[in-house]
């Protein structure tokens, strides 16, 4: 049994560390992969140079409002907060001068927050506000309390609670998390493994990067809860090869967490030891598929494996292995630290909680947004995204990445939900939404998706390896206006064969862009004999 005093002690440590800074100005710079590309690193360096002892600098992740970056916020000792968007390095000396002159509150125009206020933020709560890696800042915002609560329960009770929450995997398959855990808990094996899947190789999706850069401790906390629940002594964080900032922050956060006493001989002073290791991906969309991921970890080609056996019974090194997406795990701290009804009240029946949506394309505001299941695309595009600039209109909405397809504007009232959004096979996937305006040609974009699937086919299954380039050839026939109605049948049946006879989810979904083309944009196809 874990004593209440254990968490109290952590809290007290955090409090006393932060109390020393309470009478200073707090300057937060949001530094993520996104804002780095807009000069946020130079902003941080500039503050480092100019801030004096009256203030302290906090480097946070991006809060999701990437379109506004780099963002700087300043909290005065009196508690008032000013947030500044689209900043560059020159802001540092101005703010430093104001602080030195004790001009408070700072007189600046406040940011327009419709993008953030329109969301329901559970996973992203505190993202962009707190120091990304600092343990005290995380604990001060109730961090690791969920883990503390979890290890105070028996593992079976932990799984029960996850079951009652209705949590499903957020990587794209939406498999009930508790069911997966139960399988691995029951499975026989001396070693059990938790693999945190942050491969995130899907074009158009940048949610895991935001989480790893902004709230890495939430993912770590979730992974530790998972390890305790299924009886695993090993956690792997599997991070995309190119996500360098994510890797850096995860690495630092893990060090902070262990040196802060959360994980010593066991989790939170319990007798449950866990070893943590970070692994990097090596490129490829298919690497996010769970059996392929195991192949990569074991040092084999990037190819999926036959299932069964499922990884929960026989995964990494033939041991029971749980592969959970980073976003899934980042939901767990909230599920354990708050009443369960707080979580189940969000979303719609059988689809509780929120989903991170990577919103990009022609909308005014682009970035990462967290909304409850059941939210319409219309709300995402028009309210959170701020609609399109005047004189432009929505021609299509790309959703779910290359494994899905394009929806026509007439279906903008479609609600986001796990799994299929409609009968054409359009899926939410891991939550990428790209808004296309009327300047684009539909078939060019379908070709783009099909060509991507063809490039990324690992080559294991013949229908996918040979069929996906053939799909591209057929699309080209439509583009060059040489296609006949026979080619419509041909392309549809080929897409169907690829769907039916591929081993992994990627091959099975490789034809979906074509289905969406024929189902929704048939009238835009130029067919010779029509």
């Amino acid at each position: 049994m874990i004593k209440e005093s254990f968490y109290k002690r952590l809290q007290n440590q955090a409090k006393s560390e932060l109390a020393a800074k309470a009478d200073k100005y707090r300057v937060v710079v949001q530094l993520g992969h996104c804002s780095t590309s807009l000069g946020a690193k130079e902003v941080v360096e500039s503050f480092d140079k100019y801030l004096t002892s009256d203030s302290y600098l906090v480097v946070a992740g991006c809060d999701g409002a990437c379109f506004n970056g780099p963002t700087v916020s300043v909290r005065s000792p009196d508690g008032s907060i000013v947030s500044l968007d689209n900043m560059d390095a020159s802001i540092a000396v101005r703010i430093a001068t104001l602080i030195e002159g004790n001009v408070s509150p700072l007189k600046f125009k406040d940011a327009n927050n419709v993008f953030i206020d329109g969301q329901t933020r559970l996973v992203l709560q505190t993202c962009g506000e707190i120091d990304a890696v600092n343990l005290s800042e995380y604990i001060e915002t109730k961090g690791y309390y969920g883990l503390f609560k979890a290890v105070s329960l028996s593992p079976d009770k932990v799984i029960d609670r996850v079951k009652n929450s209705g949590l499903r995997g957020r990587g794209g398959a939406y498999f009930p998390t508790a069911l997966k855990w139960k399988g691995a808990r029951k499975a026989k094996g001396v070693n059990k493994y938790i693999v945190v899947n942050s491969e995130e190789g899907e074009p158009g999706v940048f949610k895991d990067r935001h989480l790893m850069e902004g709230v890495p401790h939430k993912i770590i906390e979730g992974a530790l809860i998972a390890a305790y629940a299924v009886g695993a002594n090993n956690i792997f964080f599997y991070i995309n090869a190119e996500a360098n900032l994510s890797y850096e922050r995860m690495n630092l956060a893990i060090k902070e967490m262990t040196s802060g006493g959360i994980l010593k001989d066991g989790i939170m002073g319990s007798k449950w030891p866990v070893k943590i290791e970070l692994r990097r991906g090596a490129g490829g969309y298919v690497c996010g598929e769970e059996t392929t991921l195991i192949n990569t970890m074991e040092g084999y080609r990037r190819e999926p494996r036959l299932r069964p056996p499922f990884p929960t019974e026989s995964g990494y090194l033939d041991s029971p292995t749980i592969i959970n997406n980073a976003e899934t795990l980042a939901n767990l701290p909230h599920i354990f630290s708050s009443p369960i009804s707080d979580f189940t009240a969000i979303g719609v029946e059988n689809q509780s909680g929120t989903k991170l949506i990577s919103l990009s394309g022609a909308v005014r505001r682009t970035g990462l947004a967290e909304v409850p299941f059941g939210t319409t695309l219309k709300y995402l595009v028009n309210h959170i995204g701020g609609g399109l600039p005047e004189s432009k209109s929505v021609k299509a909405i790309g959703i779910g990445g290359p494994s899905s397809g394009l929806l026509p504007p007439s279906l903008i009232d479609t609600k986001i939900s796990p799994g299929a959004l409609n009968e054409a096979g359009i899926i939410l996937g891991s939550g990428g939404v790209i808004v296309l305006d009327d300047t684009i040609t539909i078939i060019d974009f379908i070709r783009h998706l099909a060509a991507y699937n063809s490039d990324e086919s690992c080559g294991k299954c013949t229908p996918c390896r040979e069929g996906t380039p053939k799909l591209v050839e057929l699309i080209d026939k439509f583009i060059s206006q040489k296609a006949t109605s026979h080619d419509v049948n041909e392309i549809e049946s080929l897409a169907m064969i690829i769907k039916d006879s591929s081993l992994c989810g990627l091959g099975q979904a490789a034809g979906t862009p074509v289905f969406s083309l024929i189902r929704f944009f048939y009238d835009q196809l130029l067919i010779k004999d029509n």
Partner: protein
Amino acid sequence: MNTISSDNENLNELKLALEKHFPREHNQLMPALHYAHHQYNYLPEPAIEVVARHVKIPLSEAYGAVTSYSEMRLVKPKEHLIKVCTGLSCKIANSDDLLNIARQFANKLNDVDVEETACGFLCSVAPAVCIDGAWAGKLDPINFKTALNNLTQRIHQS
């Protein structure tokens, strides 16, 4: 296939480093390859062989793995690399224009490579380009050309 200069000395260093950092197990193949890749900025065949020996697998198997991952380079890259993202969001933000500019720029120089990438994961600040490892978002032809001018200056200085 390129070979590395001063083979033996370099390879011996790699061998010692692998012995120090990585257990001799199959599951260490990717971490060891990453390490070697980081050292040379690509994977020369002799280095793959050293890694394969270290994790006790045939070279053919290691080579098979290497060629199946898109991030592993087998050819020594040029001194400078411009990656232009041509993912969906960047494409509708006219990344094709940036790609053309980059190609014209590289044509005039010997040591600059241009690559397309399927996604730089900067869709929210599209279009995005990566010059020598540093990504820049919300580019237009004008500020992209400025960035390329800076690269030219760096090339001339070195």
